[in-house]
């Protein structure tokens, strides 16, 4: 019996493929196989002989079966390995790519600004970009012939013959949204108003269209000290520099009184601007306490309500924060620029996740 065992175990071990293995199985433990035939002979044996030969044959059969199974699985593994060896691919080839889109810096920065002011309770107000001359000027305490009007380089809309209304303008600032928002909502109110504005100017640092964000907060007791705090908080949050230094300079705007221009600390090193360090100052916004005439024009009683307003350039904020050198390139849609300065679609600025990318 040992010979039998040795014979088949070595045959199994030597089997080259599944077909050979099947042949061995049939020869050994198949219905008419050698082991099966021997088992049939058990009947002819004496009970004593049977008691010895029976378990031995069964054990042999089990052993051969498991050897067959093990060999079968080994052959299958080998075959699979062989197949996989032939399935080699060059994984350094590029993946199936998708186009990668981008968000324009103006949109990104607008969202950053909105996220910060939302935290302070400011909603986002909007207004038309073709504006009446009353909203753009008169309501903001700039009567006709006020010298300030000339400083705006205003774009005027064409007037049809016989239409004697003063020509509409392309809004020169986002400030008319102050008036519209107060007319709509009254006081108290806290809004920012981001959007496109227009001035007839085109050179190295000016484009005939740019973006501003207006801020307005009106309540019973809002003071210029609150304005200073809000702006300092804003700059610290926006530039993500704690304790960023600002400078408030007295200035003049017809729609605020007192008025201040605000500079932030910066340095120029090798032509590169750095915010929040150094001895230079960069002018970033105009602000002040809303002029009583502006409140009255919007139907808010200036004896009862007071507050501040400010306006700053979104494009300029983007340039300062992200080191973008040329304003004109913002509106040129050069694919290389859009990709370089743009933001990923899922880079949504949040206060908890961070505003900068």
């Amino acid at each position: 019996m040992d010979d039998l065992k040795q014979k088949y175990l070595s045959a199994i071990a030597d089997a080259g493929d599944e077909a050979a293995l099947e042949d061995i199985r049939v020869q050994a433990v198949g219905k008419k196989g050698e082991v099966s035939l021997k088992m049939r002979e058990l009947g002819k044996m004496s009970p004593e002989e049977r008691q010895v030969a029976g378990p031995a044959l069964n054990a042999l059969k089990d052993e051969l079966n498991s050897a067959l199974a093990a060999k079968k699985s080994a052959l299958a593994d080998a075959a699979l390995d062989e197949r996989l060896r032939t399935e080699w691919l060059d994984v350094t080839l590029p993946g199936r790519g998708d186009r990668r889109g981008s968000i324009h810096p103006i949109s990104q920065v607008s969202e950053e600004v909105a996220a910060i002011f939302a935290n302070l309770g400011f909603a986002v107000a909007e207004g038309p970009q073709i504006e009446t001359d009353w909203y753009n000027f008169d309501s903001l305490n700039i009567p006709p012939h006020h010298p300030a009007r000339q400083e705006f380089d205003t774009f005027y809309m064409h007037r049809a013959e016989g239409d004697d209304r003063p020509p509409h303008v392309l809004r020169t600032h986002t400030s008319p949204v102050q008036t519209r928002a107060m007319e709509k909502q009254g006081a108290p109110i806290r809004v920012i108003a981001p959007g496109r504005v227009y001035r007839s100017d085109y050179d190295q640092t000016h484009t005939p269209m740019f973006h501003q964000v207006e801020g307005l907060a009106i309540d019973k007791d809002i003071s210029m000290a609150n304005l200073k705090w809000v702006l300092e908080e804003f700059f610290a949050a926006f530039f993500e520099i704690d304790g960023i230094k600002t400078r408030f300079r007295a200035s003049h705007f017809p729609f605020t009184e007192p008025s201040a221009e605000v500079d932030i600390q910066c340095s120029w090193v090798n032509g590169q601007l750095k915010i929040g360090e150094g001895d230079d100052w960069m002018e970033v916004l105009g602000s002040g306490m809303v002029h009583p005439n502006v409140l009255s024009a919007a139907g808010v009683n200036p004896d009862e309500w007071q507050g501040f307003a400010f306006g700053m350039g979104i494009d300029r904020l983007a340039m300062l924060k992200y080191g973008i050198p040329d304003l004109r390139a913002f509106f040129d849609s050069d694919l290389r620029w859009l990709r370089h300065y743009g933001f990923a679609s899922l880079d949504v600025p949040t206060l908890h996740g961070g505003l900068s990318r």
Partner: protein
Amino acid sequence: MKFTLSWLKEHLETEASLDEILYALTDLGLEVEEVEDPASKLASFTLAKVKHAEQHPDADRLRVCTVETDEGDKQIVCGAPNAREGITVVLCKPGDYVPGIDVTLSVGNIRGVESHGMMASERELELSDEHNGIIELPSGEVGQKFIDWLAENDPAKVDPVIDIAITPNRPDALGVRGIARDLAARGLGELKPVAAHDVEGQYSCPIKVVIDADAQEDGCEVFAGRLIRSVKNGPSPEWLQQRLRAIGLRPISALVDVTNFFTYDRNRPLHVFDAGKVKGTLHVHRTKGGETMVGLDEKEYSFPEGCVVISDENGVESIGGVMGGLASGCTLDTVDVFLEAAVWDPIQIAKTGRVLKINTDARYRNERGIDPAYNMQAMEDAAQMILDLCGGEASDVVVAGSVPDVARAYTLNAGRVVSLVGMDIPESEQRQTLTKLGFRMEGNLAHVPSWRPDVQGPADLVEEVARIASLTKLEPKPLARPSVGVPRPILSPIQVREQMARRTAAQLGYNECVTYSFIDRASALLFGGGSDATMLENPISSEMSHMRPDLLPGLLQAAARNQARGFHDLALFECGPAFAGGEPGEQRLQVTGLLVGRSGPKDVHGASRPVDVYDAKADAEAVLAAIGAPAKVQVLRNGEGWWHPGRHGQICLGPKKVLGVFGELHPKVLAEMDVKGPAVGFTIWPEEVPLPKKKAATRPALELRDLQAVERDFAFVVDAQIEALTLVNAAAGADKALIEDVRVFDQFIGGSLGEGKKSIAITVRLQPTQTTLKEKDIEAVAAKIVEKVSKATGGVLRG
């Protein structure tokens, strides 16, 4: 507004340093734009003395000098003819930068002789053009700093020139005295008193002045003048010429320089006529139109109707408050001079200046506002100066009109200052500030000085007090949130939509552009715009003449620019307003995407293919889904003409409610805009998507079916013009309860089907809810589907 430090000090008694003054000016709202401090470039030079000078052994024109300096005797080679023993010179040492020759000195060797520095000429130090020899000083000690010597002996040479920006509310700061007053109020010294002259008339003025009726209202308030006869005009004295030159004005003659002096010193423009050339009475009147005058700038001006001018019997002699005329202007030969001081209506000055395109110092000041109360005193002060400089004899003063009364007063509410500014300024300090600025306090009533036309209410008093106190010192104070606790969302649903649409488009692979809101007329016309209502009156160029009617033309132009740079596969989008008309509110938010070229660069997977209308459709649908548009929409044709007529669709809720549109751009439009196709695009109007009825976060319960769903495929042969959606809708309508979904999975056109036919294959998914489907149930539904489709489309099941 330019002035020199020494000019300022004529009005301000101060010990403050230049830096302190500059800081205060900016902080006060008189923003310093530029400072030119000649001393800064001369700071390193010292005085020295030539002890000995002898001929250079190897050069005829050079001398070798022994020079006594603060660092001992030095040998210096010098080529100046006046380099000789005994003179005091200005020494530039090795290491010093010499501005006039733009060189940093080092020890030199000139023809074999070492030279330790140089002795400078005036030109080499940029003091003048003088270069005939080195500077010889009449006094000074060896080692003394040259700038200290200049400050003592020739202060104008080291006088800093300060240029400040003037906001339109501060005409008073257009005179040096006004600037000095602000600084004094800030505490940087004391305002010096100014002499008020009184020139008694020696005779009656032979020239009469009249303000005609048409110029009395909104024209000229008061017109005063006097004759000064037998003057001797000529160059003005050096001190006056120097002052004017320092601030960039050209000295002309004593008479003209006097008027310029008052313009800058006191913000008081004046005019001088050559009385010998004036014929008859001077009339202030309005032009009728068509008159002409040659101005002092030697240009001829032709007047429209309504300008306020001054005429005599010869015609127009001067444009009131804007510019004098050449014919009656003063020259060096002028003997009799007529001095004019008038108060003009600022608006009328602005109008006249604008229409004639004249920008003069006079116009600039008269349109911002001069001090009317100074008008008559200016007559005295200027006459005195002319007498002092040119001699002569003054007449009495003739006046037409009267000095306007600008007296007004507002109540100072000291508490209001504190509440509005948020700065604790004691009332006494507030009152002191106003007093120093020239307000007269009477109880709490602040009488406004006549030179401050900008102060028009109590709020202006607050501004003055805060400005002088310094906003730099303002302590920031936290602004509490309107409500305690976690901030609530602040964006409106449309604002949220705009952000979602934008970020979805970027996620779909589009690069966001921001293009100008105005485009050229030709492009506007292609997209339904270009009307006069949307036209700018004063465009910056013909490329930007009309408000854009749609976002596509701007994006197509951007695509063309990028193609010219060699980028041919583009996915661009923009989110912004388009303008249907020229009235406020005739703007509508659009999200527009544009695909040009191929879906991507050539790649190893063979995925790159030309973009087509189905790319645009998928992206339009993705953006719409992102902003919450209903899934069930109609796709209608007959969109705008800039789309390929057969390859576009409008995504609608009913025929009137268009949420968006997608399609292939019309080839003619592409050709006009110089874009190489293929180009497809989409536009979504986020505001058109209906708002959800109620805002609840809860989702409807999820219904999961345990019963097995069954899918069956059908292929129908239909006419080629039949739209797939019609077929799909028909199939879906066969059993609304059972049919969960119908999908098109194949289309086959022509071939064995014959001309004008196509086959559309659909998969229908059946989801039973009650019992498992049996074969006969499925067959019943299938029959119904075939029947419905056939009825709706005329299609037959493909054999």
